[in-house]
């Protein structure tokens, strides 16, 4: 494993009962890369990204994150999860905590940081996602776009090496998508290693270093966006792009 590789998947397979959800996935992600995973629904994109921090367990093969290979060892898994931040489709903010408390949650309860110090880090990040003035509100009082920005800030508080985005804009009203994408763009520019499952082809075109195209649990194609969008290698990817770009 080279020094620069932070995520490595080696022949990863997963089944849900008889359903073969992931087939022989091989993938290596270098530090600072932005990867976009796309493909038709049911192709295993979310399953794949959720396997990376062990929210789903794979059945065969090895997943190595920041030199730690996922095993049954709970301590290792918790370490991997501290290296990775995750942003969910439905935000999953804690509704019983204020925005600020949401963002200090990991710092205080996982890292055991004192409140004042945690508040400072959280406030810096909330300002970065331009939501610093809402810190005393509860998630239910915010719009979807604002909630997703808080969720990104919350994931960033743990200063992760890798950010995982699982369809971060799919549950948003159209006018709120851009404010979330803007944050993702600036993260990508700052050199964060990002793996994003998304249908935002504009974002993929502009910021992805590589695009991973999946179908029926297999990775069919991995190419840089300039190739993927202009001249996809596979017929299936071409059909997919025609469908998604037709709108």
């Amino acid at each position, binding site marked *: 494993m080279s020094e620069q590789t932070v995520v490595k998947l080696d022949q990863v397979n997963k089944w849900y009962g008889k359903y073969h959800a992931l087939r022989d996935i091989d993938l290596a992600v270098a530090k600072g890369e932005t990867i976009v995973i796309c493909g038709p629904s049911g192709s295993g994109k979310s399953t794949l990204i959720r396997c990376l*921090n062990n*929210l789903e367990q794979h059945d065969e093969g090895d997943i190595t994150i920041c030199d730690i290979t996922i095993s049954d060892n*709970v301590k290792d898994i*918790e*370490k991997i*999860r*501290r290296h*990775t*931040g*995750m942003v*969910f489709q*439905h935000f*999953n*903010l*804690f*509704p*019983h905590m204020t925005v600020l408390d949401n963002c200090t*949650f*990991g710092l205080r*309860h*996982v890292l055991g940081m004192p409140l004042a110090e945690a508040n400072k880090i959280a406030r810096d990040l909330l300002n970065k996602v331009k939501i610093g*003035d*809402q810190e*005393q*509100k*509860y998630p*239910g*009082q915010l719009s979807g776009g604002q909630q997703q920005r808080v*969720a990104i800030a*919350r*994931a960033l508080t*743990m200063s992760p090496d890798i950010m995982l985005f699982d369809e971060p804009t799919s549950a948003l009203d159209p006018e709120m998508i851009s404010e979330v994408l803007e944050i993702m763009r600036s993260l990508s520019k700052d050199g964060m290693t990002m793996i994003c499952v998304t249908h935002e082809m504009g974002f993929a075109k502009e910021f992805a270093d590589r695009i991973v195209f999946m179908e029926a649990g297999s990775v069919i194609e991995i190419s840089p966006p300039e190739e993927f969008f202009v001249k996809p290698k596979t017929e299936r990817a071409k059909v997919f792009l025609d469908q998604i770009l037709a709108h």
Partner: protein
Amino acid sequence: MNHQASIEKITGKPIEARAKKAIPFSFSRVMVWIKRNLFNTWLDSVVTLALIALLCLLLPKALDWLFFSATFSGTNRADCAPGAACWIPIRQYMDYYIYGPFPESEQWRVNSAFAVGLFAFPLLFSQRIPQKWIVAYILVLPVVLWLLLKGGFIFEDISTSALGGLTLTFFLGIIAMCLSLPVSILLALGRQSQLPILRWACTGYIEIIRSVPVITFLFMASLVLQLFLPSGVSIDVLFRVLFVLIFVSAVYKAEIIRGAIQAVPKGQIEASYAMGCGYWKTMAYVVMPQALRNSVPALITNFIGLFKETTLVMILGLLEVMGAINATFHNAEWLGLHAEGPIVISAFFFIACFSIAQYGAYLERRIKRTKH
């Protein structure tokens, strides 16, 4: 704060001023209200009038029996007015109802126990006190009550037979309420555990206990338990009764809490796990706060039920408040006064349980406020 400040900036007046602008009171508005809410359709009118008529018929009679013609002072049966309530024995035995046969020289301990218990009100109703303190209070309260009322450590031991009346009711009710909640949380988590043995054990325990009447367990605690203990060893009946009350009522609460845990979206747990949080912290800080909030109405009902179930200990010869009051009216002097005892008992339980219900309502309002 920020939000409020920004509203003030926009509207140009403090937010309190806008909120307090009440609709002016006027006679015509009252008439409109009456017409709309009491006599809207002919059926409404019939129901309204019928209920008013019933009230007019019963209320004067009841008030007369309870207060106006009732006897409050006197010394013996002969002083009682016929055809109305006679409160003489209640007044005479009031001390006994409150303290039971507790030794008189030690009654300050009962008073301090009540004071410690009443301390719950400022604590539970204040929003400024950190939750840690409240949890600590709930866990320490049973120990303090036990020391004060039953003795141990620096306090002189009081025999179980000296505990009775309100003292015993509060003693059993509060200790059972405080301790059954943690037990039920553990049971609920155990029933959903990933570990099969633990899951089966908790499920089996819950299913067996909730399928058998409480009174059976109380009988068993008093009679059957002795059969299994080596001769000469006996466990204080208070211990046995508390054990039954706690571990039986915990089963019902465990099921309430389990339902509420299942209603917490899976994404909440995933979000916590994804940050590297472990199982116990995720449960303690993410799942349980949400689950307990959602189960407040059901838990409050359960607490009320548990408090009333303490009367069942009568069958073991413990004279809690209901037993103590009933005992007076079995006294030859006051034999034949049937209604007074149950009325006093009802009044007492109503005050206690209604307070618990009010606390529940307060909690619900507070939770609603933080939700949106």
